[in-house]
């Protein structure tokens, strides 16, 4: 990488949960790293010496760049939905500086070659992309991929996301091998034997609409199965990460497993702690995703799980689809919604403003903790020496999200026209400005 101009961020309120800092601090970024963190004004002369660019963050929050450990960037193979360049541009606009890309691309990312290809500078990523590789070849659930080589190529976890790792033997094997390789196994917990032909949550709404419903047991049953496997393994300590959790029953299983000392982590997507199955309305395909929007009680459990700390982190499950793909019969339309540009605004609005969760906790859920879950070293913190990944935002500013203006190639979101709290001014990725709002000075 070519050298970058040093940047001095001054006058802001630094929130760095990993370092236990919530105070006015100036930060100097140099060579892609955090060079210094000091009391206001103390870095003025060295910044001048280095001819640093100065960003005035007065009245703004300066936080470690956000980390999304669950996105679909659609490259290789589905560039009509999204590319690594457009997906990371959307991510940068949402304050993210690291995203972890799921392997359900075309072809499936089950090889070190594809893993490297995704990280190549030629992809034009605006921020850092960490591939999550397929756990089984072609995500077919039959034969494990080469975890060691995938990790060496840059993979930060293994998953067959979009599909579960259903077979008990192969999951057992995956957990064992991943533990030795030092990779988490990320499970899309859906017992597909219970969800054939289903397109929303099982319940009164599904019955009314005449749609086959996915029972909550399809999720919780598989989480419980995986936890049982985890407990039965000896001599290794595997890490199971439950992707996009949506049911109270699965959350309970995770809570219990933690108490029993097992290494289980989980993430929840904003739509699962904000919306219920009622959002499907009259077959709104922008409210169709997998796992589906659930009942009020499950939504409340997700929110409570976040507030009381059982949920490790928020991840968007950003899943772009072209308009013509979503403009289909509900049962035929693909699952998924975009989420990178709305995650912070929705989270601050609901968790901070409505539920009075301190901003520090919000930053932790969107940056520090996800970075810790996938062990992304030097991310999710602004301690000296860590990567110069910074999100600078106005936590009080309300704005309206218009899907049409999204930087993602796709506009499939149920949050079009919603009020967001917290406006990103600058996103800095490894010392370079990856996004700058029109209002930024």
């Amino acid at each position, binding site marked *: 990488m070519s050298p970058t101009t040093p940047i001095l961020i001054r006058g802001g309120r630094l929130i760095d949960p990993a370092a236990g800092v919530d105070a006015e601090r100036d930060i100097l970024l140099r060579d892609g790293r955090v060079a210094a963190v000091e009391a206001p004004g103390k870095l003025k002369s060295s910044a001048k010496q280095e001819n640093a660019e100065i960003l005035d963050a007065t009245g703004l929050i300066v936080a470690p760049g956000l980390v999304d450990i669950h996105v679909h960037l659609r490259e290789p193979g589905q560039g009509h939905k999204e590319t690594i360049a457009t997906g990371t541009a959307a991510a940068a606009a949402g304050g993210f500086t690291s995203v972890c890309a799921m392997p359900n691309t075309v072809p499936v990312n089950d090889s070190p070659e594809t893993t490297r290809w995704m990280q190549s500078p030629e992809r034009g990523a605006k921020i850092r992309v960490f591939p999550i590789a397929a756990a089984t070849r072609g995500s077919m659930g039959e034969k494990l991929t080469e975890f060691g080589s995938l990790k060496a190529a840059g993979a930060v976890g293994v998953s067959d996301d979009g599909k579960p790792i259903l077979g008990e033997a192969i999951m057992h094997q995956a957990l064992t091998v991943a533990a030795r390789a030092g990779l988490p196994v990320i499970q899309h917990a859906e017992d597909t034997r219970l969800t054939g032909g289903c397109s929303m949550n099982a319940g009164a709404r599904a019955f009314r609409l005449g749609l086959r419903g996915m029972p909550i047991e399809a999720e919780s049953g598989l989480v419980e199965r995986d936890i049982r496997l985890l407990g039965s393994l000896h001599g290794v300590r595997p890490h199971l990460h439950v992707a996009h959790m949506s049911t109270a029953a699965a959350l309970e299983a995770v809570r219990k497993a933690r108490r029993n000392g097992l290494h289980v982590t989980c993430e929840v997507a904003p739509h699962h702690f904000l919306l219920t199955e009622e959002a499907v309305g009259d077959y709104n395909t922008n409210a169709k995703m997998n796992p589906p929007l659930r009942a009020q009680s499950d939504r409340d459990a997700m929110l409570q799980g976040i507030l009381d*700390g059982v949920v490790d982190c928020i991840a968007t499950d950003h899943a772009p689809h072209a308009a013509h793909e979503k403009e289909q019969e509900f049962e035929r339309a693909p699952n998924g919604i975009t989420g990178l540009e709305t995650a912070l605004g929705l989270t601050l609005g609901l968790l901070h403003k409505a539920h009075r969760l301190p901003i520090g906790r919000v930053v932790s859920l969107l940056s520090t903790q996800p970075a810790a879950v996938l062990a992304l070293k030097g991310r999710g913190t602004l301690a000296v020496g860590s990567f110069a990944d910074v999100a600078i935002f106005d936590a009080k500013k309300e704005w309206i999200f218009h899907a049409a203006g999204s930087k993602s190639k796709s506009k499939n979101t149920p949050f079009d026209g919603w009020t967001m709290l917290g406006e990103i001014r600058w996103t800095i990725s490894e010392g370079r400005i990856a996004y700058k709002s029109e209002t930024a000075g």
Partner: protein
Amino acid sequence: MPARKAAAPSQPTLPSPLPPTLQPALPKPAEVDGSVRPRGSVISVLDLSTADVASILAQATRLENEDPLARMKRLLKRRVALLFYESSTRTRTSFELAAKSLGADTALISSQSSSIEKGESLKDTGITLKALGAECIILRHLSSGAPYLLEASTGLPILNGGDGMHEHPSQALLDLRTMLAHLRDGTAEVDETTLQGVTVTICGDILHSRVARSNALLLPRLGAQVILCGPTALLPEIAAQIGPGVTIERDFEKALAASQVVMMLRIQAERLSGLHVDLEEYKSRYQANSARMDKFAANALLMHPGPIIRGLELTSEVADGPRSLIAEQVRHGVAIRMALVARALDRFEDKDHATKPTEKPATTDQLAHPKTPAKKARRG
């Protein structure tokens, strides 16, 4: 683990429902660009107010009694498309006959012999039909909710001829007309109390039935009680939550004893999707046979939307028996569908809606005001 470390000592609590700050700031896009739903669409029975139902019933009677040649002039040469993705005998033929009796040109497009086979989407098929001059599309589709997509893609009024497991509103309306003919002297002037004291049992494969859903949503709004009956596999408990006036009774004989109308449904083998139903057990508990009907519902009307499977949900004696209205239902279907097609093509038939005279189709004048009693209209 970071999650535990980060847990704050005092936990925020959970207010519910969603705080107002998180509601959409803007109205939904459909309302923004002014594309309100086309008048005349009937996708769900809930698209119709009780007054709409009354006006459709009155219109059905008027049209049924009208001189066929005069009736032909109402929609002469106007274009109606019948788009059928699923097989149908009754619905397709009666919609087609209905549209033709009003003078309209009809075009039938079925999935087996059209570009649908080549992969054309529902949206593009709709746009094509509109470009060919269709002013209304009658849709039957395998997928629940498909009519909403077609309506949004074309802006045309859509008449739902049955979508997946969702609804079949014209069937519910013709069922209502059949009931009224026998229980309320054929009145069209219905309101919230018209069917008070009437209990209708719908028995069989409720889970997969769009007819059951439309009837369970329509009949209670006119004062009827609806009892849903069937085994758990075909009738989940959650079905009772579909709306007010709907209850579940697993004992068919108890349900029969309480009913003035019994509506039998076919087991939809094509939608069972792995569900296993023991047919002998089913018949022993839920079949409408002579002995059972005579004992528990001697005076009840027997209805069935068809197609019937003789010897399964009902026996031949019952299907062909004196209380069976199965053929009569089909006859009412043509009248109801004439009214629905006329309504779909003449968007401003009501005086209240006649606010844009320039957009009024020429045939509007020929439609009598719906509140006019049927007899008068017949004379005129």
